[in-house]
């Protein structure tokens, strides 16, 4: 059953290519596909929740030789969250993507991106992971360059070059791993790397993977491509990237450092903690200097990545659980913020905070769609961001890492400051230019409905923090005890 998250978008991607000329059919297909995907992933989540880790050996080859697909609770949570966001974005794309981009293959690329993301979340094989990452990257390359405006092309060049560099590092690390362990199956690898844990080569490989996925998930000091490229495509595509791409990089880092490299923790986890601190700080300071709404939110992606990374650096079960909760929270809240920014642009025609203004006076409801996720990202109770950060801070107190806690709290305050700035500039202050004073331009229902749903989901995540966090703790318990994963994958042979 766990092959379906990969097959559904793949089949629909092909069918969408066959209907290249028919915009309505492509649009409908993309909604049907993501809808189906969401249903399948809800189902997978409950199966994994009840019955434990699910494994499929593709091609019926036994485990360490063939490619295994593995879904544990962490993968299932990620699959569920990304597919919900994808479903809502499919609706938003109806109005949020212009005709030229729809003509030039936006919808098939959207599906191929999902194929790559779901593949990366499901696979239990190192090289297969590389292939899925490339599928994902290729679609994102085209998506970011689609349209061909000057800023977009320039952003795309930076994005493409740095990500290709990361892929090369990833491939080299795979080669070194195979040399060391003679296997690429992640469960088998976990067993064999334990046997050679004294060797410094494992640490070298671990750091190589850290750099490769660090570039892909934009951690300090490897994040420079993100603020240079994420704000260039239309906001729908930026929301898609922020919800899926960097988060899948983060997912892989958590997977690798809990399953493959849990023992060299002294060395790598110190690096991770330091890097996490700087990621948070540079992200939020970068955001403070911005007046363009999209750029500002792009910098916040980096700062929030730092929090997830911090949970990995603390490396206790509670911290990992908090990181997983944070991932779910940030995917929902960040998407909501980007999509609200897209609606602001559709009303006032600009992302520039200096030009915007007065939205609250005319559009109270619309303002709430920004305010709620903004407060959530800033970490105010009773929203999900508060509980996510609370979890991380409790975990930090338990491991006595007071410095990073202080930093996390400070960054949280800075985030609140940044969000207040946006709120004042875009919503509260009277518009400078009288032409923006007329706020009667309607917002399409295709845009409004998904944003409302995603904001409601985000708020619900905060209100029902306890049960969700318990599921995250179960997932973290699975991650911190790799023997469950190994037994699920290899157990069938022996």
């Amino acid at each position, binding site marked *: 059953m766990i092959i379906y998250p990969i097959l559904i978008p793949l089949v629909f991607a092909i069918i969408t290519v066959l209907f290249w000329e028919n915009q309505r059919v492509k649009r409908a297909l993309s909604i049907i596909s993501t809808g189906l995907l969401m249903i399948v992933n809800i189902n997978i989540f409950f199966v994994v929740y009840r019955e434990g880790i699910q494994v499929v050996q593709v091609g019926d080859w036994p485990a360490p030789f063939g490619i295994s697909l593995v879904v544990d609770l962490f993968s299932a949570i990620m699959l569920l969250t990304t597919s919900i966001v994808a479903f809502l974005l499919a609706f938003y794309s109806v109005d949020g993507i212009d005709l030229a981009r729809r003509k030039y293959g936006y919808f098939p690329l959207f599906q191929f991106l999902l194929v790559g993301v779901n593949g990366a979340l499901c696979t239990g094989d190192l*090289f297969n992971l590389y292939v899925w990452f490339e599928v994902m990257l290729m679609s994102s390359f085209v998506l970011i360059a689609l349209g*061909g*405006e000057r800023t977009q092309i*320039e952003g795309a060049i930076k994005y493409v070059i740095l990500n*290709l560099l990361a892929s090369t590092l990833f491939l080299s690390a795979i*080669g070194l791993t*195979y040399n060391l362990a003679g296997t690429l199956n992640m469960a088998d690898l976990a067993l064999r790397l334990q046997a050679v844990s004294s060797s410094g080569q494992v640490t070298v490989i671990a750091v190589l993977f850290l750099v490769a996925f660090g570039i892909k998930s934009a951690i300090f000091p490897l994040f420079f491509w993100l603020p240079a490229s994420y704000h260039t495509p239309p906001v729908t595509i930026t929301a898609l990237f922020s919800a899926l791409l960097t988060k899948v990089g983060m997912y892989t880092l958590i997977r690798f450092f809990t399953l493959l490299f849990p023992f060299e923790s002294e060395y790598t986890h110190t690096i991770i903690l330091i890097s996490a601190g700087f990621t948070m700080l540079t992200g939020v300071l970068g955001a403070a200097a911005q007046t363009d709404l999209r750029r500002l939110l792009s910098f916040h992606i980096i700062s929030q990545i730092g929090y997830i990374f911090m949970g990995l650096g603390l490396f206790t079960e509670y911290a990992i659980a908090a990181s997983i909760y944070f991932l779910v929270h940030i995917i929902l809240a960040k998407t909501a913020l980007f999509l609200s920014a897209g609606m602001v642009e559709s009303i006032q025609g600009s992302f520039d905070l200096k030009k915007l203004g007065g939205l609250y006076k005319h559009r109270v409801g619309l303002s709430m769609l920004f305010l709620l996720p903004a407060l959530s990202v800033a970490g105010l109770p009773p929203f999900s961001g508060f509980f996510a950060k609370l979890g991380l801070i409790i975990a930090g107190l338990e491991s006595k890492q007071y410095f990073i806690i202080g930093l996390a709290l400070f960054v949280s305050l800075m985030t609140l400051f940044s969000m207040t700035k946006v709120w004042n500039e875009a919503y509260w202050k009277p518009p400078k230019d009288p032409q923006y004073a007329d706020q009667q331009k309607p917002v399409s229902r295709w845009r409004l409905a998904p944003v409302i749903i995603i904001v409601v989901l985000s708020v619900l995540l905060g209100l029902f923090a306890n049960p969700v966090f318990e599921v995250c703790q179960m997932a973290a318990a699975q991650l911190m005890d790799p023997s469950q994963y190994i037994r699920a994958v290899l157990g069938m042979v022996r």
Partner: protein
Amino acid sequence: MLFLMAIAAGVLFAAGIFMILRRSMVKVLVGILLLGYAANLLLFNAAPLIRGAPPLIDPVIGVPTVYADPVPQALILTAIVISFGVTAFAVVLIRRAYAVTGTGDLDNMHCTDIPCESEEILSDLEDEIL
């Protein structure tokens, strides 16, 4: 042999890194390609290099004492196919970038940091379609 291969991979890595530090877009692309070759060569050396031994295990005879490992070759084939696709896209992108920005110098590409007047290629495209 392994020593020579290691040297070759090292030289390719060095050349690739030198090239991606250049300012010209085309040279950066060449650098990325060289790095890709270097990574492939590294993968090739991941298993011991053995000549004249079978890669397949006969179920009757059992595991032979000397056998060649076919996995790295399979991985490289996949990686080559992927880099073929990526290169094709990168070439198209660079051509496009040259057409849009009128320069091949990466130092002149600062529109993503400092807003500059962009020719609205997209709106032209839209007009064309409509």
